[in-house]
């Protein structure tokens, strides 16, 4: 299962690669990383129909995670449409509601609980 992680902090890559070490080694998950909303959109266009799930931070300079979500849900991308899970440090009700209205499939607050995230990813894979 291919997962695209979008966050402006570069160290997120090292962290994910170690946290999902076993899954990556067994070929269960494959992670790609983008460091801005714009880069993520470019990646999706360059790798059509590959990404199953997008994990995106909301608060990024330039295109925010919410804008990326709007693009993913409304732009004509090749099928199947990827699932989008939003991650944010501002876990307030208003932001959550806005993300849901834009069609987010899930909403997680930072700091990320990796055990819970792993369970969610396995659930999606076995769906």
């Amino acid at each position, binding site marked *: 299962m291919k997962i695209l992680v979008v966050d402006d*902090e570069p*160290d997120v890559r*090292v*962290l994910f690669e*170690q*946290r999902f070490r076993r899954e990556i080694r067994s070929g269960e998950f494959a992670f790609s990383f983008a460091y801005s909303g714009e880069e993520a959109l470019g990646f999706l266009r360059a790798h059509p129909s590959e990404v199953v799930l997008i994990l995106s931070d909301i*608060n990024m*300079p*330039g295109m*925010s995670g919410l*804008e990326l979500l709007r693009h993913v849900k409304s732009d004509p991308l090749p099928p199947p449409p990827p699932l989008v899970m939003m991650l944010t*440090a*501002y876990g*307030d009700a*208003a*932001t959550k509601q806005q993300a849901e209205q834009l069609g987010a499939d899930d909403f997680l607050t*930072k*700091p*990320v609980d*990796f055990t819970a995230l792993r369970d969610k990813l396995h659930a999606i894979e076995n769906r």
Partner: protein
Amino acid sequence: MTTFLLRCGGGLALLLLLGLAAQAQPSPAAKAQFQRRLRAMHFGHRFWDAPPDSLRRVLATQRADTLRLQTLEHLQALYTSEAEDREALTLATKLRYPERVALRLTVSANQLARAQPPNLPAIRDTLQALVTQYDALGAVPLVRALANIRSVYDQQNQPEAKRAYFQQKLAYYQQHGPVENVAACYRFLGSYYDSRGDYNQAISYRLRAAELFRTFSEAWYYNEISVIGAEYAEWGNGARALPYLQQAASWPSSDASNERFLNRSIASIYLQQGRYPQAMRYATLALRARSPRDTVAAYERALGLVPLGAVLLAQGQAAAARPLLQQAQRLADSLHLPLYSGGGNFELPATWARYYAVTGDYARAEAAWLAAYRQARLEHREPLRLAYLHGLAEFYQQRGQPARAAPYALAALGLADTLNAAQTATRVAQYELAQADRAQQARMARLRQQQTQAATQSRRQRRALLWVSGGVFVLLLLATGAFYAFLRSQRLARLVTAQKQDLQTQRDQLDTSLTELRQTQAQLIQKEKMASLGELTAGIAHEIQNPLNFVNNFADVSAELVNELHAAQAAGDAAEVAALAGDLAQNLSKIHQHGQRASSIVRGMLEHSRASTGERQPVEVNALCSEYLRLAYHGLRAKDKDFNATLETDLAPGLPPVNGVPGDLGRVLLNLFTNAFYAVQQRQLAGEPGYVPRVAVATQQLGEQVEICVSDNGTGIPDSAKAKIFQPFFTTKPTGEGTGLGLSLSYDIITQGHGGALTVESQPGVGTTFRITLPK
């Protein structure tokens, strides 16, 4: 020849001693033992305000070496004779206490000081070596040793070296303690600025010293308060000086001659203010012995006679003033008194000039003015020189000689400008001075209130007596009635006095309003600082959360990796073990890196909130720009989550560091960024289709200068407002949202604090660019 050899020998011995001292680092055990004894000494009011005589009485009864040494070391903190220093050394050597090295240096400093002429560099080296020795042992209060070092610097006439030394020691003691040494460093830095005539900085430092002294010694606290009063007086700010001087004079344990000094200063201020009865009262007090055992020294008599004579003269009693001035002159001639000494100003020549002018002896008046001026110039007393230039100009003007008055008037203008320029250079420091001063005044007011309460209580006890006195008073009133007819003839004279008093009351009211205005200004400035701190807090919380998440996450994942590593080791998989160890090492460096990131943010926040010390240091402009851009952005984002903007940074690589105050420059940048975000937000709220908010910061090197450009594509500034934006209290924000001081403070910080420039270009509906240029 013999002397020469002896000197050489002495020098060599000293070199050896200093060399040994430098090598002799105390062992950890010796240090622990010393610190245990240090803790037992309980430095506090009882320690520092102990009378040396009572300590000597205790010493006379002590036989045990350890006890005697402890008392001697207590005495050393206050005052010791050479014999006492030698005994302390003998005892410490016998007991093999680690401070014996420092005590040996104390004794050799004493010996060096006795030589004629004294070898000042050697004395200073020795004293500084002994301070270093004690510092290595622990946080030892060294106020006396530091005071001796200061006085050697003063005798050597090396003010810059003195400043450098005490600034370095201040930084050290601020980190390692003790507070006594911090206070001493503040005091000596104050004396440096005092000698330069920079009263602004001098008083700032002394207020800080007083604040610390207050916590452990009454004597030093009141001493500092009286110096602050004296400096305000010299600065020409009598109204500010009075509360300090009066508070210091009212301290019951003050030294008698210091009390006379304070009374002289108070008398001179009242004289300047034209409040003659008060001036008279204090001038008389300044000449009085406090008790039968107390004697007024000849120089104090000379210094005290002048204000008394001047008051009489000002009240039109020249004949009564004459014998006082003559007496002062006789004393001055035999003592060779300068215009200014530790006892304050001695304005005899100028007072003679006024006396001769009043009595019509103009030739002598002119000669006396010229002599006064020459003397002030010779002694580099700028405030007196200015006063005498005014005196000369006025004298010639009144004599109908405008041509001779003109050059003195011009010289006075020039000197006043120079003095003012020196003061405005430190205007930013002045804000802080005003705040510290206000806090100190409030504290003194509370002290006075306590004294008043005590007085009320004793009054109550005397009430019965007062009733009797009241009866006597009624009788007196009846007698007064009988004299009424006689007094009527003097009504006219009283009317004039009443008018005079009215004028004085009006002047006092003006003074009060001015003081209140200054206070309000200081409060507003504080408010502006707090407002910008509020803007920062939300941004900082977000900025710190991110690195902390990384620290936690990398720590967690490392724990997992360690388990896997154990498993791989048990399975004998060497390649996996190596890979896991590599990952662990990487994680540790990530944890460290993100921890550093968090602490640098906290440091930045502290720098912003701390009262600026005005200390310059090399500043990396690019790092400062990107840090504050992020902080301002996240600060706004935390308040308004819908807000988003494109941030552009174009930072010139290899920019040289700028010599500046990082906290102050950060405040300016934060202010400019916050304004830029506000402007783009306003334009976005207007609902323009296709509008993308953009805030940019760019840096570049322009010859010997560094330029920072903060630009936005916000609402822009209309031409009508452009001229006013750097004025204090000008704001376009709705009432309550801005103090209107942000840009004006920024402007002061850049132009006056850093010798740079802050300019603005703006087009309404297009955007705004602020340009800072700073010299390298």
